[in-house]
């Protein structure tokens, strides 16, 4: 993945721990703006030297980059806890997990043995069969967005297209007024664009979001609907109805996990097609290749790196890992490990098998993976149907997100051919 735009600087901080990275092996920082644009090179350099990087930042954090390590750590839920899935600056130097309930994103932040019963209630709602029922309304939303783009020939497809799809889908899923999708997009965008924002600012935004969600729960209690919010209100945990708190944590998880992740995947895929006219042309000529293309986009541009908190002292490649250290889990790095993948950094329509880790691994497999795949397939295939030839606009700067969700902040495209909208 190349980077050809100007870097944005992290917010200055008195604490020198937040300075720029000088050595990616001993002092890396996933929140350095140079990290996401250069991940393939950084991981490749690490694999050739020490395959696990360490940094004293954030109170001690590790970054393993091999397929085998990512797999082993994801499956070892006893040594590595999910109570700390996001590594970022806490208020007054605290760990983010110590901020309190604001980061309780049950079941993401749950560990076995409680995890199973925390995740179980929502599973049927996100099964392939259940999400397939949303295909028509997702397609309708995509077509409306494409109609709004109309005859514009140069635009930012992140701002005009990708970012709207999961926000609209989330509103439909939870039964929120569709006009609130823009507010959801603004909240998510603020968090996505810079993980280095002052923690107080992040907390204030999260409180505003929680207030919004609480109001929607109250609406739904008064007027039950056939949607996920009402479903959550009617769920039970250990024989008792879900508490308001549990409902809000489940909903907050959907906000954090389902929106910028999906728009990053759609945006990265459009950016790839804009840079690879040969892949775009094949998808136009052979639409039956979409399922393979989606899996390759997911493998190459997997947006999510999770993190774990180390529960007990352990070792990794002979390095002493201490309890309470952070362990980043870069699923996207496992997806390009050359010991597992042939021509790992190439997009291949005919890859013989593709068991990538884009949606994580083990018990925390992404709850919304089936919905995300559906959104990608519909959004990308409709875009290509409307705009069968386009290229990335090289006169515009490219910028990548900062933090554990990797995706393009902008996807500037130039349209070279447009089909007429369906009557």
């Amino acid at each position, binding site marked *: 993945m190349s980077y050809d735009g100007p870097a944005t600087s992290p917010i200055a901080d008195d604490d020198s721990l937040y300075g720029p990275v000088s050595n990616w092996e001993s002092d890396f920082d996933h929140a350095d703006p140079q990290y996401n644009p250069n991940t393939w090179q950084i991981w490749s350099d690490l694999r050739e030297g020490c395959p696990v990087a360490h940094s004293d930042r954030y109170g001690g954090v590790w970054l393993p980059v091999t397929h085998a390590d990512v797999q082993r750590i994801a499956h070892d839920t006893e040594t590595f806890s999910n109570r700390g899935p996001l590594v970022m600056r806490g208020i007054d130097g605290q760990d983010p997990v110590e901020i309190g309930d604001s980061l309780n994103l049950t079941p993401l932040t749950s560990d076995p043995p409680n995890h199973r019963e925390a995740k*179980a209630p929502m*599973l*049927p709602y*996100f*099964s*392939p*069969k259940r999400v397939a029922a949303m295909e028509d309304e997702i397609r309708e939303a995509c077509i409306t967005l494409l109609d709004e783009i109309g005859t514009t020939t140069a635009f930012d497809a992140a701002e005009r297209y990708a970012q709207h799809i999961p926000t609209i889908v989330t509103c439909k899923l939870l039964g929120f007024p569709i006009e609130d999708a823009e507010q959801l997009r603004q909240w998510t965008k603020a968090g996505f664009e810079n993980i280095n924002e002052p923690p107080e600012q992040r907390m204030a935004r999260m409180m505003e979001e929680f207030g919004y969600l609480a109001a929607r729960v109250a609406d739904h209690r008064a007027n039950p609907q056939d949607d996920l919010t009402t479903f959550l209100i009617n769920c039970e945990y250990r024989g008792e109805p879900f508490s308001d708190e549990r409902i809000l944590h489940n909903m907050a998880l959907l906000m954090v996990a389902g929106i910028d992740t999906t728009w990053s995947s759609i945006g990265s895929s459009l950016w790839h097609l804009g840079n690879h006219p040969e892949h775009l042309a094949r998808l136009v000529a052979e639409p039956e290749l979409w*399922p393979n293309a989606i899996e390759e986009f997911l493998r190459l541009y997997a947006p999510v790196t999770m993190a774990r908190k180390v529960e007990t002292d352990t070792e990794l490649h002979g390095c002493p890992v201490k309890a309470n250290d952070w362990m980043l889990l870069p699923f996207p790095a496992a997806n390009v490990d050359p010991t597992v993948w042939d021509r790992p950094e190439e997009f291949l329509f005919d890859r*013989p*098998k*593709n*068991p*990538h*880790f884009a*949606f994580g*691994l*083990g*018990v925390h*497999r992404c709850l919304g*993976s*089936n919905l995300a795949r559906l959104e990608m397939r519909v959004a990308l295939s409709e875009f290509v149907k409307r705009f069968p030839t386009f290229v990335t606009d090289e006169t515009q700067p490219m910028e990548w997100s900062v933090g554990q969700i990797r995706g393009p902040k902008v996807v500037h495209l130039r349209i070279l051919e447009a089909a007429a909208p369906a009557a």
Partner: protein
Amino acid sequence: MKILVDKDKCTGHARCNAVAPDLYELDDNGYCSLTELQVPVGSESDAQAGADECPEGAITITS
């Protein structure tokens, strides 16, 4: 040829069902509902494709 699914390893990626829906059925939660299945003649390559796509390595094909 038989399909063996290790239910302890299945976490609901549903990839087996996506590539070979006639062989790999899912339960209501979207997890593979098989534990063992005799592969019908002619479906051997579909059985293998389902196993190959599983990120958890939960599916084994025996001859």
